[in-house]
């Protein structure tokens, strides 16, 4: 038996997918690039002994927390809800192949949350070096979460050798994974960082 189809009377399923995916992808890229922006700006403040830049970094980290933790985090879960309603068969296939890829991304998400809370709430309450290390760890795990999800998203477009081997690794390291990671993972995340600095 196949999965039932959600009968949408006023719009196609793609409408809901576009709304939630565009919003989430736009904001979630800030969650990665913004982490680098925060630590680099903080370092700049220390290097130049500039209290205004430091105050800006602190206030920006609050905005960053509210934007990425709440909006990006929840819309990310929302994408999952959306695809499972619109294409349950495809979602089920994806989840069954990459369950531990998703689980690995979940670990990165957990570390991100803890790092961001500590970064914001411990600003100027712990040593500069410790605070910067927490900021770097936030960025590293945010980058890794994109790394893992990017491979799974690429697989949806071009499953490559997985079609024959059914191997997790063939699916994960699919043909466009490398070039797409190099582009998608870095350009949209980092250009705002370096253009602002």
């Amino acid at each position, binding site marked *: 038996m196949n999965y039932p189809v959600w009968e949408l009377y006023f719009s196609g399923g793609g409408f809901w997918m576009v709304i939630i995916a565009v919003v989430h992808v736009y904001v979630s890229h800030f969650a990665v690039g913004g982490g680098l922006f925060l630590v680099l700006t903080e370092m700049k403040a220390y290097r130049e002994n500039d209290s205004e830049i430091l105050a800006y970094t602190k206030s920006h980290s609050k905005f960053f927390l509210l934007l990425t933790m709440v909006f990006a985090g929840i819309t990310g879960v929302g994408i999952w809800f959306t695809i499972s309603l619109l294409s*349950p068969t495809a979602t089920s296939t994806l989840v069954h192949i990459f369950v531990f890829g998703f689980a690995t991304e979940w670990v990165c998400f957990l570390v991100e949350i803890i790092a961001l809370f500590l970064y914001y709430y411990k600003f100027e309450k712990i040593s500069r070096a410790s605070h910067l290390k927490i900021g770097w760890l936030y960025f590293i795990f945010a980058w890794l979460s994109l790394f893992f999800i990017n491979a799974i998203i690429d697989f949806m477009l071009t499953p490559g050798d997985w079609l024959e081997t059914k191997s997790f690794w063939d699916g994960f390291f699919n043909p466009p994974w490398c070039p797409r990671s190099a582009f998608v993972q870095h350009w949209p995340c980092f250009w705002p960082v370096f253009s602002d600095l």
Partner: protein
Amino acid sequence: MDPLSLIPTPDVIPVHWGWLKFFLIATFFLHLLFMNTMLGIGIIALAQSLFKTPGSTSINREISAKLPYTIAFTVNMGVAPLLFIQVLYGQFIYTSSLLMAVYWLSITAILIIAYYSAYLYHYTFDAAGSARTIFMAITVVNLLIIGFFFSNNMTMMLSPDSWVRYFDAPGGTLLNLAEPTLIPRYLHFVLSAVAGGGLFLAIVWELKARRHENHYQERIQQSLRWFIGATLLQFAIGTWWLFTLPEHVARIFMGGSTPATALFILGMLGTILALIFGFKGRVRPCAGATILTILVMVLMRDQMRTAFLKPYFELAMLETNPQYGSLILFLIALGIGGAAIAYMLKLAFGNKTEARS
């Protein structure tokens, strides 16, 4: 129509189902600890504001600072069990989600509203005055709605015979209101949250009391009263739930299955033990007994789901295409992630005398 014919074909799993079940139970247990705290302290803060309980302002200020954390961790810890349940029971939960798609999809928006409202409550605590109660009400009502949707889905996935309603209403607007277990199950979770919230606050005040020469005894007692009251009510709600279970499911807790019956007895004993410690004002043993009881309840819930689905499906029926390399990747990530968390906590709390330079 034979309900069996409505169940989609399950996909192949990458490791033995025992691994997936272990991760499902472990992460759901953690999710439940955070969820109980989140919803419980929210309900307590709202009740204290509405009934203007003495000392409620300072207690609610404390809650306002902690609620956003608990929402973040509840969501994060909810992601993992939702992942593992889809792998083990995807053919059931995808279908039930789809039948209530409108409500299920709305959870994203409702959660964002609840989350931002909790932050508004926190950041405007002093500035908003009594109007802040509105923010907490928005958070609590929305979280209760999400819980109700989850209870609907978790019960609907267990009853494929209710899925035939889809043919009359394919627009994703079905709930499972005719299911006898729905309301007692939902109330059971809400009450356990109130108990958990009360216990969490008792722990918070006890930790503060140790640092500030025991000024918080009254608050510890007040928090424990929430725990005790909700747990006592739980006996009535739990009994109601038990009596609404189908005969073949209830029977497993009444001698029909040795592990399920043993868990049921352990759950009762753990609850009674937690209550005794609660009455005596012994916060830590009470917390220990409660956490163990929650673990037992999670295992009971799993036994119950297995019994519900037994006429249709057993996990041993799942086909496996071994991909243990992906499991190792996850275990390595878990280890590295755990080490990173421990390191960051050490940086943040480990060396308080370090100079801020």
